[in-house]
């Protein structure tokens, strides 16, 4: 009997039994963000609901489409995580209200920032993939080209108590809305969820109370009116995880 050899075999067996599969901790995760809406706490309903903005206009909403882009997460150590991508959102189409932010390093985060709209490189005619959605958001070349950043449309009761329409169409690179909001959370592993909630009344509130009767019910190509709406857009979203 070859005892040393048997001992070696046992030794290996014992050593192997001590081995556990090495757990590889994920270093990156993703954040699935659902986008939700309210109007000062009231649910968003197409056409039927009547809301009131800061200027006192009573209004309804029947279209809300926009682009989100250039997401950045700021870590509490000061590190900045950029996430590439442009997302088309239609508030009234459920499948168009989730976005997935991929390849995010795990860790603690403090702040989320992004554009409602596009940056100067993206806001060029035919820059985005040639889909019907993107084509319908095109900002015509004779008006400068690029894309609508926002289409918010509906009806309101005007100063003469007559039902009228409004169309808040935002475009031109200088009117891209840079949103920067608190987003304190710990991303631990692969698939996590969060929400962005838009209070639509904020488009008409701060810092520029917007009155359809005096500021205009149709703002496309009206630079002063677009600038007001763009400034208000900074505070329309809140983040929650």
């Amino acid at each position, binding site marked *: 009997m070859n005892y040393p050899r048997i001992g070696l075999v046992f030794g290996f067996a014992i050593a192997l039994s001590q081995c556990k599969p090495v757990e590889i901790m994920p270093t990156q995760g993703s954040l699935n963000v659902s986008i939700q809406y309210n109007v000062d706490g009231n649910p968003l309903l197409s056409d039927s609901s009547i809301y009131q903005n800061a200027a006192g206009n009573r209004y309804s909403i*029947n279209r809300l489409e926009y682009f989100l882009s250039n997401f950045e997460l700021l870590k509490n150590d000061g590190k900045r995580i950029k996430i590439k991508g442009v997302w088309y959102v239609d508030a009234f189409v459920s499948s168009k209200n989730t976005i997935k932010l991929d390849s995010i390093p795990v860790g603690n985060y403090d702040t989320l920032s992004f554009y409602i709209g596009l940056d100067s490189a993206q806001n060029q005619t035919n820059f985005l993939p040639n*889909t019907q959605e993107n084509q319908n958001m095109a900002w015509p070349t004779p008006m400068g080209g690029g894309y609508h950043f926002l289409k918010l449309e509906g009806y309101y009761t005007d100063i003469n108590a007559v039902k009228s329409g409004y169309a808040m169409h935002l475009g031109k690179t200088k009117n891209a809305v840079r949103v920067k909001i608190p987003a304190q959370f710990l991303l631990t592993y692969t698939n996590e969820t969060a929400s962005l909630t838009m209070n639509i009344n904020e488009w008409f509130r701060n810092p520029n109370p917007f009155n359809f009767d005096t500021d205009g019910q149709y703002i496309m190509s009206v630079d002063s009116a677009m600038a007001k709406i763009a400034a208000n857009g900074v505070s329309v979203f809140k983040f929650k995880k």
Partner: protein
Amino acid sequence: MRGWIIATAIGLCACNPTSQEPIKQATPYPLVIPPHFPEMKVSPTNPLTVEGVAIGRMLYYDTLLSKGGPMQGMSCSSCHFQNQGFTIPTNGTPVLHHANLGWSSNFLWNGKISGTMEDIMRFEVNEFFAANPTHLKTRPKYLELSKTAFGTTEITNEIAAKALAQFFRTMISGNSKFDKFLRKETIFTQDEIMGFNLFFSEKGDCFHCHSMPLMSDYAFHNIGLDTTFIGAGRGRYLVTGETSDMGLFRTASLRNVALRKSFMHDGRFKNLNDVIEFYNSGIQSSSTVDPIMYKTGGIRQLNLSAIEKNALLKFLETLTDTSFLNNPALSNPF
């Protein structure tokens, strides 16, 4: 001995199941999408094949489709003439033209049918024409092509609908002067340029509904034709029952619009000058008129000059696509 071997060989050949005529593989159809057009969504269960498209093309022109039904004696081509951009050459009730429908998911003026091209073709075959496959089977070519295209020697209403859907997806109009202008293959006249700029600016504001390059958003709008709505004029409301849909109709594409003899869902306008004048000065307010038909101060008036109106007309004429009107692949195969 030798004779036995030969006899056995013949017997084996006869028993070989592969000696039956093999089913020919369908040939993928080389669909060419203009480079400036969006991607077309094609059902994975109904990919385009040369043979499937051929059946669809035949059906489009074949009165057997309606034999025995309420539309007896008619085919699609009875109202959709290729040289008119696949619409009717008269000035009665307008017939929606057939071009670029492969990009739409809403069909008919009020969107009675929504979904895929197969869905609208099922409606056309089963309800509009009330097709009876027994009559279609009398044309051997359908059975022959169906064997290759769909793997069966049957021609059913479902196969007819799928084949028509395939053919409709090939009905692409994307080579007009306007398209060539976009591709920088030609230049516009001064009038056409002025019209283009009016169309795609706030002055004319046509582009929100007639968006490039399909010249339709295929969505529903009340453009302010009426203040009250009765009968078919109730539009989308007849489908949804929603009061907010009263008077809404699907945006018609402007492709080949200059060839049409009547305009709007009820054919009330008989020429493009009248249409332009309507948008210029005739929009009427109602509770459902589209929000973008308003400008600050109320319902919009374009206040176009005669020169501007003429320029718009000239631009619209650039949407005529003669290669589409004369495309032999879309013509009557009989």
